[in-house]
């Protein structure tokens, strides 16, 4: 990686900041550092292009630059991506905050056939702070309450945020899924006055419990007591899967492939 790469990356980001969404497709390689999409999976180029369009819709004046981008001794580019703009439109179901924002994210880029694979390096508290600043996560003292807005963050982004990586982690428990659809829309383990932000369903026995952000954490308690490690989100249209034992996250398409397998076995 050379200074020519730095110039090229900053030029493409400049085009995106000027409103040219196609610059992202020219910038981003189809694969991430640890993400090699299968034949039926979206490429990194497509994923980033989708995010870029979503961000542009939420902040039409969005500008992205990496002012300190420079080649490192490891053959990669390093710097801090700086996103600035005004949050004036909805994003992933959250209404706009109307506020100006400035978000700084450390990134590493490596070259891949003339385009670039981007890896963002955010510690969990930093990631949460960013999500809060754009209204996707409630204030810390309101986390246990039902969400006020129909926020649904794309599965892929959740996977990165929850696990710190884009590749699926191995999980032998997926083969043991027996049920996928809930039969209730409440946490029966909670009291009549309890509230929760979201519900999770056990994919072994169908138990439905309140999520880990809730006060009672009955879904997690169910895993601890039963040993059933896999749960899915049943909040709104979400269908992502979490394995408590393997700390593994799977996107909705994994649930859909399991459902197809179960239907084939029926």
């Amino acid at each position, binding site marked *: 990686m050379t200074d020519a790469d730095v110039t090229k990356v900053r030029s493409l980001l400049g085009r995106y900041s000027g409103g040219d969404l196609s610059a992202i497709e020219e910038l981003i390689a189809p694969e991430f550092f640890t993400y090699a999409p299968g034949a039926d999976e979206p490429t990194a180029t497509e994923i980033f292009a989708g995010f870029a369009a979503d961000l542009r819709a939420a902040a039409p004046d969005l500008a992205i630059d990496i002012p300190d981008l420079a080649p490192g001794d490891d053959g990669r580019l390093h710097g801090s991506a700086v996103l600035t703009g005004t949050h004036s439109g909805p994003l992933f179901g959250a209404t706009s905050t109307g506020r100006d924002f400035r978000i700084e994210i450390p990134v590493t880029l490596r070259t891949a056939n003339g385009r670039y694979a981007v890896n963002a390096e955010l510690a*969990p*508290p930093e*990631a*949460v*702070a960013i*999500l*809060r600043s754009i209204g*996707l*996560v409630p*204030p*810390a*003292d309101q*986390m246990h309450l039902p969400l006020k807005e129909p926020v649904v*963050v794309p599965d892929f982004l*959740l996977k990165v*945020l*929850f*696990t*710190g990586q884009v590749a699926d982690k191995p999980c032998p428990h997926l083969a043991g899924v027996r049920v996928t659809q809930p039969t209730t829309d409440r946490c029966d383990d909670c009291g009549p006055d309890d509230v929760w932000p979201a519900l999770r369903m056990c994919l072994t026995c169908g138990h439905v419990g309140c*999520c*880990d*952000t809730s006060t009672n*954490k009955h879904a*997690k308690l169910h895993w*601890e007591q039963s*040993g059933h490690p896999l749960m899915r989100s049943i909040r709104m249209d979400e269908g992502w899967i*979490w394995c408590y*034992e*393997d*700390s593994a996250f799977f996107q909705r398409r994994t649930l859909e492939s399991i459902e197809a397998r179960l239907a084939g076995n029926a």
Partner: protein
Amino acid sequence: MAYMVHQRFASAIRDAYGGKAERSEIQRQLDEARRTRDWLEALEIDGQLRASLVEPIAIVEDAFRGLLGASRTGRDAVR
């Protein structure tokens, strides 16, 4: 969602301590996490700021409590 983002701390703790550490060591770590959370919760600062400080340490405490529970029940604490 924030709990799950912080879950990366819990995953790291389970990787480091699950199945390897002595039960007394996990108990010691749990006590430290609990003490830290109690201290943070007692800070007389803005409630939202205080809650954001408590948020990650509560995950750490949960992780050690889970490991301790697993060692009690005989359940494998790690994959």
